[in-house]
């Protein structure tokens, strides 16, 4: 299983762009990079997934360089409601259960 490493915590202010970088040096060829968001007292929620280059949806963008050893989740113009823990996972088609790392606790200030 590919181990992911991400910052323990980050602080930001409303309206700023937040970039959370995840390191996954041993990612397998068939692994997808997947990000989940977890608010207090709730289960994790799928945000975005990608294999390489750039993926964008209504919530975030995900940048994965050609070597796939790292990835960056970009949250445009964060608001207070984006305060949450963000988990980066390497998800392979061979194993359907998820392995969560420690996550990044994002605190957005007014």
């Amino acid at each position, binding site marked *: 299983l590919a181990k992911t490493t991400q910052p323990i915590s980050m602080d930001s202010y409303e309206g700023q762009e937040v970039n959370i970088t995840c390191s996954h040096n041993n990612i397998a060829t068939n692994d997808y990079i997947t990000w989940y968001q977890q608010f207090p007292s*709730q*289960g*994790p929620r799928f945000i975005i997934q990608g294999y390489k280059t750039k993926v964008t949806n209504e919530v975030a963008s995900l940048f994965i360089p050609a070597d796939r050893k790292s990835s960056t989740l970009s949250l445009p113009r964060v608001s207070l409601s984006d305060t949450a823990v963000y988990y980066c996972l390497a998800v392979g088609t061979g194993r*359907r*259960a998820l392995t969560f790392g420690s*996550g990044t606790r994002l605190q957005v200030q007014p």
Partner: protein
Amino acid sequence: SAVISQKPSRDICQRGTSLTIQCQVDSQVTMMFWYRQQPGQSLTLIATANQGSEATYESGFVIDKFPISRPNLTFSTLTVSNMSPEDSSIYLCSVDETQETQYFGPGTRLLVL
């Protein structure tokens, strides 16, 4: 996306007792997963529940402590047996609609005194 509900949402239990947590999905799914999240920590997979077969447990989790049932494709239960304060956690079930993405229930917050 699948809608998942869990019962109870929270409970306070005495040590030595057992609690059964229910997980209901609004659509048929092949695999269901049970996770534990201890206070301030990340999620840890307990087991994978397949319909019609025994659950597959992760290292450190055993069937005697966490028996699981999966009677059909929309329902599963996790029992936390002979509880101790160390079992105080949030217990979450999840399902995967695709192989790469999972949907989680709201969790069951358990406090053991």
